[in-house]
């Protein structure tokens, strides 16, 4: 795996090119921990399997996980922030719609 700058053991980089890492156990809001060499305080609870920004990510910048694009930022994101539906979206243009029943097209 990657030789990245010091990162808390509860966070996992899946590829050295990633700008997000994955929580491998739940981490509570308010915890201070190192991510990619920078000490940050978590503003939200991070559930198991969720993504955390590993560095500053600008609006419209590509989110990289597994070493590949998985979408793009819809706002500026700071290291240690949860990365999910509220601050990123899919770049894939679906040929069909999803999850109709809640009135949304499911494409975030």
């Amino acid at each position, binding site marked *: *795996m990657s030789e990245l700058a010091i990162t808390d*053991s509860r966070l*996992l980089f*899946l590829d050295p090119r990633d700008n997000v890492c*994955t929580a*491998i*156990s739940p981490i509570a809001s308010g915890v201070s921990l190192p991510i990619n060499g920078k000490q940050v305080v978590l503003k939200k609870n991070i*559930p*198991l*399997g*969720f*993504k955390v920004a590993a560095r500053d990510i600008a609006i419209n910048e590509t989110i990289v*996980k*597994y070493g*590949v*694009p*998985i*979408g793009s930022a819809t706002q500026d994101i700071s290291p240690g922030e949860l*990365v*999910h*539906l509220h601050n*990123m*979206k*899919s*770049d*894939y243009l*679906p*040929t*069909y*719609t*999803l*999850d109709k029943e*809640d009135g949304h097209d*499911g*494409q*975030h």
Partner: protein
Amino acid sequence: MTGSTELHGYLRKDGRKGIRNYVAVCYLVECAHHVARAIANPFEERGVHLIGFGGCYPNAYASRMMKSLCTHPNVGAVLLVSLGCESFDRQSLEQAVRRSGRHVDTLIIQQTGGTRKTIDKGRAWVESTLAAMQSDVRTPMDLRELVVGTVCGGSDTTSGITANPAIGLAFDQLTAQHATAIFEETGELIGCEHIMAQRALTPELADELVAVVVKAAKYYSTLGQGSFALGNAEGGLTTLEEKSMGAYSKSGSSKICGIIKPGDIPPTGGLYLLDVVPDGPVRFGFPNINDNAEIAELIACGSHLILFSTGRGSVVGSALSPVIKICANPQTYRRMTDDMDVNAGRILEGSATLDQVGDEVYDVLMATARGRQTASESLGHQEFVLTYKYFEPSGPSCLPLA
């Protein structure tokens, strides 16, 4: 890698070698299913497996699948069980098996005199065939002759973090040694098509890789089935391409050398994509009604064994080829330990690295190829399903120049 890689296999007439030497009892229509099962049942622990096709009306895909499975290298003998009036072309299937050098016979229930007489006759044939197969010997088998398939089922948020990338590392070890590795689920590669295309051996293949995913997206769209459920987001997955990447990571990082369809035998070693989504307009329903439909197709392409990634905890195995369970989620592993072969969830708990679990997957598959039983084999799992489908032959740009 660790341990000896020395393999031995049962040499078949077509040059392929099997890591098991099973008898396949095959029903050729649902009406013959009970009789075939009753023939096979007493021999459950002696390598006699039940497969079959339930449909009464002809289907070229099902015929081809049955022929591929009955001449699979893990199969040494085949007993066909026909009711007598179904459409399945039992004569050409029997001829194909006979030409392949295997023991074969066909029992027609209507001609044999009904259920009881056919069961008695079938069991006697299996008993004498098993005795004849006792003298079958194994010959040295090169790793280049091994074919491994992968599938995921019962996925959760941990699958794409632990088990799937660990399988990808094992796949990289296999392809580096010129073994054949097959991944599939084109419907779960939606969003990965352009990344995947960059790994194509030729520009023509790159176009084909994109095309099969576009085909899958259209097919699923017509069925009205979404590929990103609400539960995915609740589990921490944000986008369709993120979910797809989790599944895609099973393929590892080597070059993709071809696209095959069910029943195609990869012509060389290396990494292949199995296109499981039917061609043409949507007909006959879902492409794959469950995980075993995909496993049967991987086996029909010659897979000697299957690497199966699960997060929520699938228990299935398969007829004909051993299934190795790589459990992604440590909590599931603790709950269902007996059903699992590898605990990839250790990566989440910090007690193993991804590289270590990748090596373990490789070691377990080599031990299985050398004869060790998997968890699903030892528990007697021999699931099998085959449905109606339609495929056109693979195009010339899908396969490497042999």
